[in-house]
């Protein structure tokens, strides 16, 4: 395989937060870097870049994924939702409102990923108890230790839905 044959860039078309996008990216670009660097959607964070922390959680076709561990080019044609697409300051998603009400964050760096993960959890098979929520949220880590209030926020939304 010769280096001169390699097509390093490619154009992809996908929908991000409801808006169609056509972007030319280096094939090595992660979905995370595409969202942050090319679309300036910096709500999604890079915590570890290796799928170990969950700060980069977004929805791809309705499912939560770690956007650092997938290539942008793999998602040609996909629908992506980031934290920016969930709600706005004037129109908070119920999960966002619950995080505020329950004081479910301190520094805020893991928070986008926590909220995106929690919203997806609402549509996944999850037992009613806190232990089940903790298990399904175990892919989102929080150095500030806001876990108790994160779980409370999620349970509050589940109770009210």
């Amino acid at each position, binding site marked *: *395989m010769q280096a001169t044959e390699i*097509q390093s860039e490619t154009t992809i078309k996908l929908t991000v937060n409801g808006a169609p996008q056509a972007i030319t990216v280096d094939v*090595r670009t992660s979905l995370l870097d595409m969202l942050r660097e090319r679309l300036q959607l910096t709500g999604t964070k890079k915590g570890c870049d*290796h799928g170990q922390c969950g700060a980069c959680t977004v929805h791809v076709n309705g499912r*939560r994924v770690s956007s650092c561990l997938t290539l942008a080019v793999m998602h040609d044609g996909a629908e992506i939702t980031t934290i920016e697409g969930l709600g706005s300051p004037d129109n908070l998603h119920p999960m966002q409102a619950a995080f505020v009400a329950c004081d479910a964050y301190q520094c805020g760096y893991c928070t986008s990923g926590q909220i995106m993960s929690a919203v997806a959890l609402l549509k*996944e098979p999850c037992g009613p108890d806190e232990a089940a929520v903790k298990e399904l949220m*175990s892919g989102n880590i929080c150095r500030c230790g806001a876990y108790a209030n994160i779980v409370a926020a999620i349970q509050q939304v589940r109770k009210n839905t």
Partner: protein
Amino acid sequence: MHTFEFVRPADSAAAVASAAQVKTAQQGAEVRFVAGGTTLLDLMKLSVETPARVIDINRLPLDKIEATPDGGLKIGATVRNSDLAYHPTVQRDYAVLSQAILAGASAQLRNMATTAGNLLQRTRCVYFRDTAMPCNKREPGTGCPAITGANRMLAILGTSEHCIATNPSDMCVAMAALEATIHVQGANGARAIPIGDFHLLPGSTPNRETVLEPGDLVTHVTLPPPIAGSRQVYLKLRDRTSYEFALASAAVVITVSSGKVTRARIALGGVGTKPWRSPEAEAALAGQPANQASFRKAAEVALRDAKPQSENAFKIELAKRCLTYALQLATA
């Protein structure tokens, strides 16, 4: 990250052809298939994997779970781990598989990772993952620094003087206990490989982890018909409650009649260089009363050849207790 050619072939034959013209499908492969990408991209970011071509197989028709004519199950290569774990037939008839998958990784990773990818996941050994370190698996002949280094998470079964890396998969341990068959489409046609023959011991060639040859594409996995009356448990012991690899795990599929074990299939995780089916433990249990004493005896047999590393001698007793307790839970 080294750059690469990214291709999306129209069908499996094209995918196979695109991957066939290279020297190896093992460590150092010039061409890699990508499905979930959760292992491949992790290793490409570390330059442990440096394929010149990456073949996206996500759009091939390999994403179904279907019954087989003999009453078993056919699981497509690109079925997401979460879909497999939550499938009603799997939860009803192959519960150990669902339990094992849900015990692994995180929800996000389970939504991305696939059946075939999980079969091919790589060791978490810190020396393998660090290109500044010698590693016989990554660069044959350079040595194994784990043997005299940080080896707490590494293997006690199936090791050699060249490599002690653990296979970290949970799914594979359950599939071993379920006697799964791996189906591969290759340059010379299709073949079926019992899971026990799919992964290789390190021996003197730790760079060779499976029997796959260049061009080989895993298309699906089949499970035999469910065993009527079987009780199934996957028990995973680890440093954290969740989102952590196993120190030791056990998958058991056991049938008991009139208080005696009539059939047992046992596999261990977290302790072997490959998913560790234990026919010795199964033989030790056959016809025995289904009680703690028999289970403990079988566990002793299962770990008889275990070789502790400098930091993980505790795994021997831990694995015995894990298997004993899994059997107790299954037959309670």
